[in-house]
């Protein structure tokens, strides 16, 4: 078995009475896009900062590339790239100079660095803004510059800490596509977010965090299998009678029925052809149906069932 790129064991971080990380453990393999999903304050950024030896912690071990991580472990640091949650660039330096500056903290060879900087600029699509100062860039472009500063030196492990906060949809898509491209080019990626759609879109494995604890870890499908729900069908229809509701509840694989906002909502745990069976029943009962929705469970459903709170509710 290969050495994990990141190995965190029993990490505990306290801020006085508050336990920010509570015996948190994690292993990330090479080539993964690993998502840390959780609401604000769940411990995602604290995990990253402890992992990078920026934050002291009370207990636990952190290994990166099989080596114990410490502030002086420059060999390990050389292969890490970090895209901070807050934009961290110098207002006094241009786009090109900012990328060159941060790349220069890793790469001393001037020619090699110039090539890497150009590649990073091309990667984030800032070719037309090389000589712009950060204050002249829009929020989305600024985020892209922030990313370029973190990845220009072509690290083996890249950490993205909520890189799409306050970013327009176009820039967000470009960022997500870029992360997938970096992964295809060989980088292992850690991606923290409270946007479950993003995590679901790009991450190969996900850890659900809540109150400093890891509640579940696995692929999207593995996580979805942890919960009872496999399908939720909603149909716009007049409110069924109590007897009809009982009959719907007795259909195969149904575990919950409700009538919410002029819609009949039926939740299933497994089974096939659930929609056809339900629509046949409603037709037989002479109900006029409007729009029909069939949804497979999302990470929000997973989060809801595991933590007892919807991810968005807890924001």
């Amino acid at each position, binding site marked *: 078995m290969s050495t994990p790129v990141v190995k965190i064991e029993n990490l505990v971080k306290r801020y006085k009475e508050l336990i920010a990380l509570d015996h948190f453990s994690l292993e990330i393999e090479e080539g993964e896009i690993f998502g840390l999903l959780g609401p604000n304050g769940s411990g995602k950024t604290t995990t990253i900062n402890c992992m990078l030896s920026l*934050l002291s912690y009370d207990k636990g071990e952190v290994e990166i590339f099989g080596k114990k991580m410490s502030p002086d472990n420059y060999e390990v640091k050389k292969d890490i790239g970090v895209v901070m949650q*807050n*934009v961290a660039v110098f207002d006094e*330096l241009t786009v090109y100079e900012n990328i060159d500056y941060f790349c220069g903290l890793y790469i001393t060879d001037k020619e090699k660095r110039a090539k890497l900087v150009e590649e990073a600029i091309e990667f984030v699509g800032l070719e037309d803004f090389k000589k712009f100062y950060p204050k002249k860039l829009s929020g989305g472009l600024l985020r892209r510059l922030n990313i370029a500063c973190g990845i220009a030196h072509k690290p083996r492990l890249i950490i993205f800490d909520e890189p799409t906060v306050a970013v327009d949809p176009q820039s967000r898509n470009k960022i997500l596509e870029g992360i997938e491209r970096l992964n295809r080019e060989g980088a292992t990626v850690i991606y923290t977010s409270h946007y479950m759609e993003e995590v679901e879109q790009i991450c190969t494995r996900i850890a659900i965090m809540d109150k400093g604890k890891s509640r579940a870890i696995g692929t999207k499908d593995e996580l979805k299998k942890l919960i009872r729900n496999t399908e939720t069908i909603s149909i716009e229809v007049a409110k069924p009678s109590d007897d009809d509701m009982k009959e719907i509840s007795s259909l195969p694989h149904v575990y919950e029925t409700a009538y919410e906002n002029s819609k009949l909502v039926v939740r299933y745990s497994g089974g096939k052809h659930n929609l056809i069976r339900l629509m046949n029943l409603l037709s037989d009962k002479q109900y006029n149906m409007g729009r029909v929705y069939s949804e497979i469970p999302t990470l929000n459903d997973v989060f809801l069932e595991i933590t007892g709170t919807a991810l968005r509710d807890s924001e």
Partner: protein
Amino acid sequence: MFFHKYKYGLLQTIRNKELTFWALGFTIILGTLFYAAFGNVYENDDIFEAIPVAVVENVGDDGFMQLLTELSQGEDKMLVVNKTDREKAEELLGNGDVEAIITVDESIALSINSTSDSISVSIVGSIVNEYNTKSALFEEIAKTNPEKLPQAIEAMNVNIDNVIKEHKLTDAPMNPYTDYFYNLIAMGILFGSTFGMTIAINSQGNLSAIAARKCVSPAKKSMSAIADILAAVTIVFACSVITILYVKYVLGVELGDRLGMYILTALFGSIMSVSLGYAVGSVGSIGEKAKGAILLTVTLLGGFLSGLMSHGMRQIVESKVPFINRVNPAAILTDAFFSLTVYPHYDRYIRSIIGMAVITVICTVAGIIMTRRKKYASL
């Protein structure tokens, strides 16, 4: 990597328009306004006021008394002589009615107190020193080569004229308004402390996102800090040299003939200023705005106490709370410029340089101690 960081440190510092304005633009504008306000004074040669001195004659010395008489006569008189006894002389000095007591004894002695005006003391001191030196020489010649005595007397007369003309051993004029420009240059240099503060904030992972990004890189923190500090000192020093040259050559303020020493002083001042800012910026428990306010207070209040807004303030502070003048960076720096202009010797200048060195060492050590942490309890 060091030169990479130094190069970008220079770029960041020089492009920080706000800070550069305070370190250079503001100083030049204020200097120009000072010059406009004092312009007539500078063009007026007759700005010197005769210095009041008390003379206690314990032993008769006709030569010296004749010299005093000559110096206290006419429109261009240098001294206002008050011949009196010791007790009365001390009372006059204590009340500030005279700047010094000249005691005529076996040799001529000078007594001053801490409130005496430095320029006046320097002038009177030069006269006394010159007379003592020449009279000793005169006696020696009389003993060893009496035949050369007439020539010696003639030479002595010539040199007394020189004393009257030179006032002191440096060539600078005795314009009290020049003190404002020393203060101005000092203030400009001390505004550079903000650069040091920015460096400290951008090097601690718990204070800024940029610092956090730097901390997770393989670049050593100490090397980064040294490169940044060196870049800041370079810019502050360059600003101060431009200010000195502007004051001297554009405004025409006569700062004296020790330009090289002024520039050296500006270099020491720049190092002190950046290290002061670095130390304040390194304090983790207070916010950036509070740190900026502390530095502004040190600069402006320090400037006020060293005489930026009111000539003679430094002497008042010296008489009441001399300790403040020893620890106030603005006063130390101003005094260094002042003593270069006024005193022929370097005793007082060296005291100022030592003061700057002590502040620099304390601030640097404090800054290093506060920033040496590599992991933070919170971000």
